[in-house]
């Protein structure tokens, strides 16, 4: 009898342990999948993968020339020596939320933490789970090649006072769940403003022209006006036109998006129809503004 009870206890313990392990594994898998989805929506590869040179996934991007110097998207694979393998979840959270690196130093805002700070804690955790799950690739990226005096990180203290507002995006009461979801995806995850809003002389987003296009974007990009202005923006576009563009990269007149947006569409093409629709609903609600002058 005692032997039977013992066997039963062992079996129960094994089942419980096995069950717990399975749940933990399943939870991690789900977090990784959610993180992969967010990484696609946020087009992490755009800056962190050198696609043109056939570089490994997220092992470092191509040079990104800006008026302040040339940035190199860092290796964010879990390689301990050259990537973020030594970063804890807290380190990663601080980078995304506060724009500070693993040593606590201010990060250059070429890394768009001004948008990523709007992410939820849960989404940041999922992104971390995903990034720690991809193959570690040893690839040392060069340091950023900044023009004087922009490479001096303490200067960023003042910059952040002017242009950085930390914290998750709060839903707007009175707007639909779909609109709020679209706003979250556009503002926090896909960080649309980082390209479609022009920058002032100090490199801060000039939100007086929010979404009105940036003719002098990074990498010599001419990002268009995507406000609802009928002449210069997307005023004549239907929501479905935006959904189609985010899915296939094709505009209503049959053109194919180019430049950085082609990379963005590689990610937004992987989103659910519901999320693409939510982004479209939000983008269509942006007040009309004329195109940012050159």
């Amino acid at each position, binding site marked *: 009898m005692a032997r039977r009870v013992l066997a039963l206890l062992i079996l129960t313990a094994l089942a419980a342990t096995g069950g717990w392990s399975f749940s933990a594994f399943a939870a991690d898998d789900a977090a990784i999948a959610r993180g992969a989805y967010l990484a696609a929506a946020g087009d992490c590869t755009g800056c962190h993968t050198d696609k043109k040179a056939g570089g490994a996934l997220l092992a470092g991007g191509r040079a990104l020339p800006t008026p302040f110097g040339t940035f190199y998207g860092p290796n964010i694979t879990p390689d301990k020596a050259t990537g973020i393998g030594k970063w804890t979840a807290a380190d990663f959270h601080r980078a995304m939320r506060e724009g500070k690196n693993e040593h606590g130093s201010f990060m250059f805002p070429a890394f768009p933490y001004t948008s990523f700070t709007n992410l939820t804690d849960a989404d940041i955790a999922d992104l971390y789970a995903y990034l720690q799950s991809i193959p570690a690739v040893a690839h040392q990226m060069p340091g950023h090649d900044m023009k004087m005096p922009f490479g001096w990180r303490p200067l960023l203290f003042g910059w952040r006072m002017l242009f950085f507002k930390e914290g998750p995006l709060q839903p707007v009461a009175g707007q639909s769940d779909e609109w709020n979801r679209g706003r979250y995806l556009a503002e926090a995850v896909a960080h649309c403003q980082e390209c479609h809003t022009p920058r002032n002389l100090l490199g801060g987003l000039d939100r007086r022209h929010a979404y009105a296009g940036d003719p002098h*974007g990074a990498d010599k990009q*001419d990002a*268009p006006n995507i406000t609802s202005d009928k002449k210069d923006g997307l005023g004549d576009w239907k929501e479905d036109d935006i959904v189609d563009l985010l899915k296939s*990269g094709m505009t209503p*007149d*049959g053109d194919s998006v180019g430049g950085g947006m082609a990379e963005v*569409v590689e990610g937004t093409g992987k989103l659910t129809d519901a999320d693409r629709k939510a982004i479209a609903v939000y983008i269509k609600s942006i007040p009309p503004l004329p195109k940012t002058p050159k």
Partner: protein
Amino acid sequence: MNFLRTGLVAAGVGIVLVSGVFGVSAQASKEAVIKERQEFMKAQGGDAKAVSDYAKGQGDQAAAQKAAEDLIARAPKIMALFPAGTSTTEFPDKTKAKPELFTETDKVKAMITAMQADQTKLLEAVKAGNAAGAGEQLGAMNKDGCGACHGAYRTKSS
């Protein structure tokens, strides 16, 4: 002697004038080709839209077939529309074609070849009345050809 000097001066002036005329002419010819390719691309877009409309159940099959045939007929003409000296370097206000397009011609040709294969399948799908298949092939054409080239070699995002 005076006659010789006058002749030399006249010849020099002539050379300068002729060079100038040729220079202006070459410049005008490059601007003309930029304009021509922009019109060409608009026509490409119009055809892509016709197929897209058909794929979405908003356009008719005959129009989509004609559009697919036009796309196939135009594809071999693309490279000739990008002669050297017509990039953003020379014409920053008139074109969005990055200079790399003119040096990485092997890559551009590979994109066109991939696009042509997609276009053949696109036409087959349209002819078969397979709207969903046409939509898929249009997506493939966009990914391998139009979008790939615009993504790599056009400064304007859309």
